[in-house]
C-alpha cells in the first residue's frame, strides 16, 4: 500500500483518518484508471459522454454540519458504490464469463478490495456511526438480468460507465472529507495537548 515505510525506520504514527484519506486517494486513482480501461474497451464513451441521472445521490439526506457527519454521508455513498460495483462484477462475469482476464478485470477486483478496506476504516473513524444516511435511489441488482430477452446491453454499458463515474466521484469526496477530518482531529489533539 502506498505510504508503507521501511520497518527499520521509525516514522511518526499516522492517524487512522490520515491513513483512510491516503487510501481514498489511492482508490480514486484506481477508479480513474479503471474508467480509462473501460473507455478503451467501449470507445464510444470517449467521443460522446452519455447523459442521464446520477446513480448515487444524497439528496434526501439532511445537511451535515460537522465533518464527522460528512464522513458518515460519504461512507454511506461509498457503501452504495460498493453494492453497485459488486453488481457490476456479477453482471460482467455472467455476461462475459471468466475467460477475459486483462488489466481491466484485475483492477476491477483491486478496486473492490480497496473499497472494502476504505469502508472498514471509515467505519472505525465514526464512533457512533454518525451521519449515516441511505442514498437514493434504492439499489437493486437483478442477477441474471441478461437472461431476459429484452435486456439491453447498451444500457448495461451506460450503467457500468455511470457506476465507474460514481466511484470516481465518491472516492474523491472521501479523500477530501477524510483529509479535513484528519486535519480537524489533529488540531483538536494539539489543542488538548496544549491545555
Amino acid at each position, binding site marked *: 500500500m502506498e505510504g508503507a515505510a521501511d520497518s527499520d525506520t521509525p516514522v511518526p504514527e499516522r492517524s487512522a483518518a490520515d491513513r483512510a484519506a491516503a487510501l481514498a486517494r489511492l482508490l480514486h486513482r484506481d477508479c480513474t484508471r479503471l474508467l480509462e480501461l473501460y473507455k478503451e*474497451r*467501449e*470507445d*464510444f464513451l470517449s*467521443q*460522446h*459522454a*452519455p*447523459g442521464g441521472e446520477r446513480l448515487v445521490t444524497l439528496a434526501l439526506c439532511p445537511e451535515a454540519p460537522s465533518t464527522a457527519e460528512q464522513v458518515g454521508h460519504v461512507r454511506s455513498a461509498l457503501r452504495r458504490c460498493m453494492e453497485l460495483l459488486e453488481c457490476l462484477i456479477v453482471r460482467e462475469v*455472467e*455476461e*462475459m*464469463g471468466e*475467460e*477475459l482476464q486483462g488489466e481491466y478485470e484485475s483492477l476491477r477486483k483491486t478496486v473492490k478490495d480497496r473499497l472494502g478496506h476504505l469502508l472498514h476504516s471509515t467505519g472505525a473513524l465514526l464512533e457512533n456511526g454518525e451521519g449515516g444516511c441511505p442514498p437514493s435511489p434504492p439499489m437493486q441488482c437483478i442477477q441474471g438480468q*441478461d*437472461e431476459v*430477452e*429484452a*435486456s*439491453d*446491453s*447498451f444500457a448495461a*454499458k*451506460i450503467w457500468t460507465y455511470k457506476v465507474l463515474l460514481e466511484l470516481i466521484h465518491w472516492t474523491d469526496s472521501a479523500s477530501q472529507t477524510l483529509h479535513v477530518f484528519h486535519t480537524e482531529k489533529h488540531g483538536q489533539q494539539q489543542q488538548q495537548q496544549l491545555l
Partner: protein
Amino acid sequence: MQGWVTLALLLSLGVECSLGQNGVGELPVPRGLTLNPDLPAQTLSLTWQSDSSLFDLEIFHTELMNVVLNETVAVKTDPVTGLHSWTWHSPLPLECTSHSAHIRARNQQSVSQWSPLQTIPGSDIPEKSESNMFPQDKVVPVGSNMTFCCIVKEKEDFKEIMYGRQEMSATRLSRRTYAITATNQPVSGNTGTNVICCSQRLTLTGAVVFVGYPPGDEGLVCETRDLASAECSWKKGRDTGLRMRRSRTKYTLNGRDCLEANERKRWWCSSKAWEQSWTLVARNPLGTVQLTDSAQLTDRVHLLAPVNVTAVEVKAWSATLQWSWSVAAYKKLEMVCQLQLFAHELNSTRNYSGPGLSSVVLESLWPDVDYTVTLYCGSKHGFWKWGDKSAPYRIHTKMDRPDALDVWMWMDSSNTGRVFWKPLSVRKSHGALVGYEVSQSSAEEDGWTPVSLPPGNFSYPIILNNGSDITVAVAARNPAGLSQPSTVTTPAYRADSQLSMSELLSTNGSFVLSWQPNANASSGYAVEWVPTGCSGLCPVDWKKVPESDSSFTLNSDSLVAGVRYTVSVYALSTGAPTLLQRWQGYSQEMTPSQSVRELLPNQSGSDVLLSWKATAMENQRGFIRGYTIYLANAAHLELIANISDPEVQSYRVKGLSLSSYKFVVKAYTSAGEDAGATVAIKMEMDTADMLFVGILVPLGIMFCCLILISICCYKKREWVKKAFYPEIPGPKVPGDWSSPQGPLDVKPSPHSLVHIVESPEWDFTKEGLFPVPEEEEESENDNIEVDADSDEPALLRYYNQVVGDGSHGNQVSDSSGSSNTSVDSTQTEITYAGIQSPTSSQGACGGGGYRPQMQSVIGPAEPQIEFEADFQDDGLHAGYKPQCSWQLDSPEAENFSGSLGSPTSVTSSQFLIPESSEEKPQPSNTWFHNFLSGKS
C-alpha cells in the same frame, strides 16, 4: 306503364354509371384486417376475411405515409380458421415508427375497394417521449446487412448515428426517427458492436449488435476410460466471435446438456453409460451443428495410465517391471503394452501383451546403463489407441565384466613394437573400466608376465629378445571383473624398403582394398594403416576382417587428408600374423606444404645447373609427380621446364647471357604445385678469361709500350737530349768563372742553411756538413755569408767536380732546414736547405743571376719569411731562372720531403754548375737524366 319503364332505365343507367366509375363493384372488400407484429423477428402478420384469393397489399410508414410495400399476393383461405393470413418481414424494426396497412381483393383486372387502414404504433409516438434505438442486442451473421433506427427524444436535436467508429448516412423516417443500414457487417469484438445515436451535445441512445458465425464444431468421438462410461470429445472449429452469454454456443449430447462444454471449460461431454450412438448438437443464435458417432464400447477403449510402476529385480542384462491399474475392470481386459526405454544411444521400444498386464521382464538390457522407462497400454482386441503414459521410471542395471579387447601389435623395427588395443565402448565396457592388464610370454620363457595399466592407456611397448616371437594378452578390468584376454603374436617386421609397395589410389577419400584370399588366414585378416615413416607413438589403426572377406573399404573418416598412409593386410591365424600385401597412398592428395630443399644454382659457362632435393615426406602431402622450373621475371613466372620424373632433381638452363636471373622450382602433386623455391644467380665471366683479359693483357700491353718507348728513347737519345734536355748555359758573372782556379769556397747565405753531408767513406768522423766558421769565411771570402744559426763552424765548400762521379742521390731536406744523411751512400750527399746567390742576398734571380736552389730551402721561421720575400721578389724579375719557374709550376711547392725527381731535388751539382761556361738548360728530372745517362 311508361313511368315504370323510365324508372327502370334510370336505375339501369345508375348502375352502369356506378360500375363505370369503380370497376370493382362486383368484388367485396376484405373484412376484418388485423395486424400482428412480431417485434424481435421484425415481422408483421396480416389476417383478414375474404372470398377472394388474390389481394393487393400496401404498407406505409404511417407518419409520412411512405409506401414500404405494394404487392399483389395470392393467399388462400385457412380451412381451419377461414381466414387469410400473410406475413411480411420488415427490414426495419417495427418499433422504429408506426406502420399502417390496407388490402383489397383482386380478380383479373377488377379489384375491390381498399380496406380501412390498420396501424400498429411505433415507439416514436408522442406518448413515448424518450430516446430509443432499435433493434437491441441483435445477433447476426458476418456479412449480413442490418437497419438500425434512432428515435430522438422529444425536443432533442439529432446529429448522427455511428456504427462502431463509422459515421453512417441516416434517413429520416418520421418526425423523431432516423435510420441507417449497415452492410456486410464484420465480426464483432468481445462485447459486440456499438451503434450510437448522438445529438449535438451527448449520446442520446444506442444499441449493441453481435456479429459472428454459426457453430463450426466437428469430429465427435466417444470412448470409454473405465469400460463403462463414455467421454465424447470434438474439435471446436472456427471461433464464432460470440462471447456474450446469450450468444455462446450451447451443446447437448443425446439431448442432455453438456455442462462441461457449456461452461467453456473443455470440449468434451461425459456420459455415465455407454450408448451405441451419440449425437452432439451445437447451437448458437446463428445456427446449429449436429455431430454423430457410433461404436461398440470394446472398440473405444482408451486405457488410463499405469500407476505405481516399480522395478522389482534389476540385473546386469535384465530387469522385472511391475505396475498396477486404477480401474479394476482392466484386470480382465486383454491388453497390449508398450515400453519405451530411453538411455544414451540405447533407446528402444518393446511390446508386451496379456490379460490385465501388470508385470513384464525386460530382457537384453545393457549393464551399467541408466534407463528411463515409460509405459502405456491399449486394448488388444479392437485396438483403439494407446492409453495414457505412465510417469517415467528410472532403472540402473548392474555392472558386468567387460568384453574382450580388440588387440593389435605393430612392429616399428625387428626388435621393438607396440601392442595396441581399442577403447571399449559403453556397450562393451559394461561398467567404468579401472584399468588394463597386459601379459606377455615368449617361447623361451614359461608363464606370463602381467603388467597393470591405468584405464587411459591404449598401447604398451614390446621388446623382442633374441628375435623370438612374443605373445601378448590384454584384458580390461572393471569393478565387476576382468574381461577375457585378447592375444596377439608379434608379426615379422618388414620394412617398407624390403617390399615392393604399390601406390594406393583413393576413391572419394576412401581406400578400396582387395587381396588374394590366403589359406592360412584361419582367423581372418587384419588391415592395418599407419602414417608412412612414422616412428615412436604412431597413430596405428586397424580393422579385423572375417576370413570370408578379401576386400575392405577404408573410409575417409579414419584417414587424414594429405598424409601418406602405409596400409598392410595381414593374415591372422593362431600364430603370428603374416603380411600379405602393403600399399602406400593418400586419401586425399594436397599440394606440398613446403618447397623443395637445397635449391642451388651452379654456373657452367653460359649454362646454369639447378639442383635441389625433394621436401620431407610429411610435407609432400601427395605423391610428387614432378617439378616445374620457372624463370622469374618482374611480374610473372615463365615456365622453362616441366620435369615429370620426380627422381630427376636437377636441370640445366642453357645459353644464358651475362645477367642476373631468378629461378623458381616447384614440386607438384596431383593436387597442384607448391609455393616454389626461388634462387637467384648473376652470370659472370670465367675466372681464367677474366684473369687473362683483366690483368695479363693490360700488363703485357703496358710492358710492350715501355720497351718500345725505352728502345725509341735509347735510339734517339741524342735527339731527346736536345729536345728535352738542352745544355744549360753557363752563368754570366763578372770575372773569369769559366775555369775555376781552385776549389771554390762557398760561404752559405746567412738566410740559408746548407748542410753538406760527406760520405762516410770519406770521413766517418763527420756526420753532416760542416759549415765554414764565420770568422774564417769572412776572412777568406767576403761574398760568402755566414749562417748565424749554425752552431758548427765548419767550412762549407762547394765542389763542382763532385758531379763528375754522377752517382749522388742527394735529397733535399725538409723545412726544418736540417739535412738527412744517407749512410748507405758511398758518396757525399749534399742537401741544400737553401743556396744563396753567389752575389748577394738581394735576389740572384731578381738580378738575373744564377740561383739554382734557392727554392729548396725552408729554414726556420724567420728565414722562411725572408725566403718567401725573396721568392716573391724573384717572380718580379726577368732573367734566367731555370728552377725558379719550375718550382712555381710544381704542385708540391711546399712539400719538400725529398724524392728522386722532385723539382727541388738536387742530385748533383753538375747541373747547378755546368762544366763549361756556356749556358745550358737545367735538367727537368733527375731519373730521366740518369736514364739518359745510361745509369740506373
